């Protein structure tokens, strides 16, 4: 079999699936060696995926198109998965807590599975249509997906927070999760980080639209949904300052926010029509 980028990338689905399973085992049995194995497998998957992306970039040059692999749904899913793993690895390095991996790697695995095996997603390398021939493409896609990936990880934290419950119940499994205070802090930090990149993503999109069409904001469904997502996370960030709203409500908001991200990402392409149609095939 010819070693194409999409073949290598489809294999990372299984590596991330393995990583998820190992992190879950680590959560249950709490053996340090299993945890380290989880990290090793995740890093291996990440390296493989990086190589796959680089190879795809090269392939596009060999085909004479020559553009960064960030131009259609398949490539954006691969990139989303890649950034999610990157953000998670940074969080793991900073917090030294590997249980989080059981809540972050599934997002990377699902994105890759959808990209590689869904009949709705075509993995062919396509040339860039005139509207996409801009340096803003890179800036816009990278920043948006840094935001999306951070929100995926924040959603993982939200789920962990809710699983941990009100802190009164204590069990073997729950005790392995970071404390509620730590989770709250991590959630807040990840949301600010994601919010920063979502904002930069919206702005680079506006600058680009202004350059291509002469309108920085045209209320196209994708733009509007990114604004809706922005409002949801703005709510989450301000909820901290209202008495009694911290913690659980913010955990719910981080999950609702990610649902809104998912809708901005897929729902708009499949259910609504607009200027962003190139993201849908």
């Amino acid at each position, binding site marked *: 079999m010819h070693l194409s980028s999409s073949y290598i990338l489809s294999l990372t689905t299984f590596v991330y699936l393995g990583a998820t399973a190992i992190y879950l085992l680590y959560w249950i049995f709490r053996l340090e060696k299993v945890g380290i194995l989880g990290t090793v497998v995740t890093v291996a998957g990440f390296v493989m995926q990086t190589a796959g992306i680089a190879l795809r970039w090269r392939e596009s040059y060999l085909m004479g198109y020559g553009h960064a692999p960030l131009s259609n749904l398949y490539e954006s899913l691969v990139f989303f998965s890649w950034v999610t793993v990157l953000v998670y690895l940074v969080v793991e390095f900073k917090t030294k807590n590997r249980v989080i991996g059981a809540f972050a790697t599934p997002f990377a695995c699902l994105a890759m599975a959808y990209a590689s095996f869904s009949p709705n997603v075509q993995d062919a390398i396509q040339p860039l249509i005139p509207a996409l021939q801009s340096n803003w493409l890179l800036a816009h896609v990278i920043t948006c997906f840094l935001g999306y990936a951070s929100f995926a990880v924040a959603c993982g934290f939200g789920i962990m927070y809710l699983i941990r419950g009100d802190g009164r119940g204590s069990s073997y499994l729950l005790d392995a999760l970071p404390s509620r205070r730590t989770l709250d802090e991590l959630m807040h930090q990840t949301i600010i980080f994601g919010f*920063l990149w979502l904002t930069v993503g919206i702005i680079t999109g506006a600058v680009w639209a202004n350059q291509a069409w002469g309108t920085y904001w045209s209320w196209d469904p994708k733009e509007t949904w990114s604004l809706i997502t922005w409002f949801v996370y703005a709510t989450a960030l301000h909820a901290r300052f209202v008495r009694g709203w911290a913690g659980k409500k913010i955990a719910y908001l981080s999950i609702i926010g990610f649902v809104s991200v998912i809708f901005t990402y897929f729902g708009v392409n499949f259910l609504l029509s607009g200027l962003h149609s190139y993201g849908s095939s």
Partner: protein
Amino acid sequence: MKTKRVHSESNIVVRFFSSVKLAIFLFIILALTSIIGTVLPQGESLQFYLEKYGPFYFKIIRTLHLYDTYHAWWYLALMGLFSVNLIVCTIKRLPYTLRLFRRNYLEMGRNDLLRRPFKAQWETAQKTNPVDLQSRLVKTFSGLAGKPEARENVDGGKLYLSDRGKWSYWGVYLIHVSVLVIFAGAILGSFTGFKGRIMLLEGESTDHAVQMDSHGNIKKIPLGFALRCDKFEVDFYPTGAPKLFKSDLAIIDKGKEVVKKSILVNSPLTYKGITFYQSSYQSVPDLKIRIVSSDGKQKVLDLSAFDKGLWPEKKLMVGIIKYLPNVHGAPAARVYVGDPSGSNGDAVWLLEGHDREVSLGDNSFRLSLVSAKEKYMTGLQVKKDPGVWIVWLGCTMMVIGFAIVFWVGHRRLWLWMGKDGEKLHVILAGQTNKNKVSFEREFERVKEAIDKQIGEK
């Protein structure tokens, strides 16, 4: 501090507009109502909504302006309320932030230090020379935490403070103000700018753009100069996907050609604040028709689609009714031939390479389609928006604000040293308002360094 707060909150109006709860309420309402315009088609004719949704929903759609949700009075009112909330909140928080900003964090006693979230203390053995050790510790502290401020006579010792990132309290203000700046830019743009379209054939020029309002009326907007399209180019990939749309444009101002530029989809042309964007194209046929009269005279007419040409000498008019680029491998056109009033004439098909005789009264003419070329018409989006730079300024402020809020914390590290009898008592304390994890690491580094100094007797 307490009394002041109660006083300012006594005004119920201020309290309403300044509450974070109102902000959250507005975020949620704006998020929910924004969904409407992404689900309901926007900008269609009223007739469309009546037919599609029936009279009941039509009434709601018309009253609430849901056919143009984001410019509806209630949506703009929500945005206005949001701005007022933002302004009042910001002003109200100002004194509080100023107090945080101006507070002197050297005004602390020994016991205050021990109540900080991060702290460590040491007592040295008697052998040490305290003066020497003190100066070594200060050097270590400044080396790691930056040059400190100092205050003498604090509970019998000297207090050092490294106070960094205090200015980061203003990051949030930068974000809040930036939202208002963006609104201001958008409002300015919508009142002083315009948007229009231009369709130009290759070789043609115009001095105005065309704007269509919501009722379908066409309005001409003068540009103040002329724009000419010299050439339009389109190119496709082997897959059939478009690869390139390009117009060679020239600007003629006061009769002089001042600018020449090729524009692409992502590379527009701006002149005197007006920007021209490549947005669409049409292909228009350009036909050459030769007419030979029965008396042997002949004339060649150069016509594009729906165009008509005259041969005044023979009182003859030729007009293109229809053009087909490929009929059995050759271009064909249906043309009207007759007198200019249109009262006496005939419509015939001309196929390239085949002559056609037409008799009109006493005269007869032989017509032939000499050549048919595709000529392009470029579609340009025209825009003037003086507010756009203010919007970009707001965006820049917002991003800088977020970067400050995320990365810069107010980090304080205190070092207190005092003699406790013969022994030297050392306290290290720390506090930060964000990024506790990385601050803890820094605190541990300073702690270890002090540990090491005190250990070296």
